[in-house]
């Protein structure tokens, strides 16, 4: 799932670098390595372990093919989400630089697709499931969720970059089922190693660490689902005001008449990132799901979240300063 530089545009690449830098900064702060210096060599050596473990293939029963450990979920379970995210970032950087596996410009995309979803979404899910079920079920479900989100993210980043002519539907239908199978294999491999360690050296059994405020996480996920899927249905119908105007004057939007109105309308259209809740270049659709509107919904939810959080973050920074 490592993306190459040829797949992405510089804009998407740099945006993902920015996002990765933000999450890495946050993880560094939460990790507080000065207080737990022992983790430093452990992270380095475990990063190398994941690399080596990927070399050892195992036979997938009944298929005649083989698979290997991805390692993201295992790292999150062993080290906690923040340390695992940083370790994975370093491993991916080494892979890009020394083994040409994933591009340097696409590094941010790869860290998000393989690290963020695994450490900050799949791992909290694992943590919840392990309390109610067993290691096997929790690992498989968490690995599948992490990889499905990562694979979808690859599709969205490729689509937004517009560098290849892969149709959204075909690419998604190709990526998601393959990564479902890979996710199941990854879950089984992770559970095998964790249960071995738990049985052999119970003192090394991983401690569960809370990665983020549960409420914020749940609300964020809900906002993404609503923004991504339901906006597609909702935006095709007029809202209450548009409906009223339509029944009053026969059109759903009031149009400008004066020169000032026209000037501001042109300015607004040129500045709007998502005019009429859609991407400027338009987009593909699968059945009732309009991709442009869905992506706009997700971006919109993100912008709103940032706008709401900004005063709190600024206030916190000032207090700390």
């Amino acid at each position: 799932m490592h993306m190459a530089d040829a797949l992405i545009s510089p804009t998407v690449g740099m945006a993902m670098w920015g996002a990765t830098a933000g999450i890495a900064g946050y993880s560094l702060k939460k990790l507080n390595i000065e207080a737990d210096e022992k983790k430093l060599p452990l992270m380095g050596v475990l990063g190398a372990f994941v690399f080596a473990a990927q070399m050892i293939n195992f036979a997938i029963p009944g298929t005649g093919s083989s698979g290997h450990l991805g390692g993201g979920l295992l790292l999150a379970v062993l080290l906690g989400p923040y340390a695992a995210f940083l370790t994975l970032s370093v491993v991916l950087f080494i892979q890009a630089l020394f083994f040409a596996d994933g591009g340097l410009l696409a590094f941010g995309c790869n860290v998000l697709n393989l690290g963020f979803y695994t450490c900050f979404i799949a791992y909290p899910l694992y943590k919840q499931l392990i309390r109610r079920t067993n290691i096997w079920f929790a690992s498989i479900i968490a690995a599948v969720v992490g990889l499905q989100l990562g694979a979808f993210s690859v599709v969205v980043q490729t689509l937004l970059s517009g560098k290849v002519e892969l149709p959204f539907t075909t690419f998604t239908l190709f990526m998601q089922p393959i990564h479902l199978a890979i996710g199941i294999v990854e879950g089984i491999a992770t559970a095998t190693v964790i249960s071995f360690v738990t049985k052999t050296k119970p003192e090394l059994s991983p401690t569960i660490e809370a990665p983020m405020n549960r409420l914020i996480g749940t609300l964020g996920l809900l906002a993404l689902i609503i923004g991504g899927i339901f906006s597609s249905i909702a935006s095709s119908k007029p809202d209450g005001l548009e409906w009223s105007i339509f029944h009053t004057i026969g059109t759903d939007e009031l149009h400008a008449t004066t020169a000032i109105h026209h000037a501001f309308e042109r300015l607004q259209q040129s500045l709007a990132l998502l005019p009429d809740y859609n991407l400027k270049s338009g987009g593909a659709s699968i059945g009732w799901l309009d991709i442009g509107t869905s992506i706009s919904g997700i971006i919109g939810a993100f912008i709103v979240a940032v706008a709401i959080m900004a005063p709190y973050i600024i206030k916190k920074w000032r207090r700390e300063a």
Partner: protein
Amino acid sequence: MIYPHMLNIVQRRNIHPLSTLIITFTYIFVVASFHSYAFIEMIPLSLYPIAMIIFCRLSIRHIKHVLIASLPFATVIGVSQLLFIDEHILFFHWYIEARWMAFSTFVLKNTLAILAATVLFLTTPIEQLAGALLSLRIPRFLVIQLLLTHRYIFLFLEEAKRLREAYMLRAPRHRAIKLSVWGSLVGHLLLRTFDRAERVYEAMTLRGFSIQHMHIKIKRWTTEEMIYTYVTVILFIVYRLVVI
């Protein structure tokens, strides 16, 4: 007047890591920014990696291995271009099938990006790269992580190879390791990893290690190297702005 100096820097194979890092990123940025049919426009850009390979006498064998490893990915995505594009474009005076142009452009773009990253890797030792990252204000902790992981990756790869060979010698008919055995093999490797991490930590503590005081050498950026970097970066950017 500047050219002989720049040639001297490159030929000494002693390019400042920060220069190589900045040039590589700009180069990849410029390559990635070209549109899907910009095959001809991108050909002059291949001069940079080719010149570096020749002047720095880089290992062709290593470059060949890296390019071959990237071939399956380039082929899969490139072939998808062939399947999904159905139009003709004007190429000089002829109308040609756009799909072949898109395929060639994708393969060239992928090759150039990989070559640039490989040139960075082959001309810059990891310790110097760490120094360059530090001078770019990358947190010291992450740079130490990079050095530690890089240090142990090759040791662990050797160990993994030995484990796999040992299994294959005992079970010659198996194409891959049985899952039940695999769990125990990788589990043991993980336990040894924990032990090794403990030993590394103790060794570091005994030698008075601390994150803030770990010495990573940052090379001085000379005027010649600075000019070389700026000239190369400006050349790439100007080329991109001229060839749209």
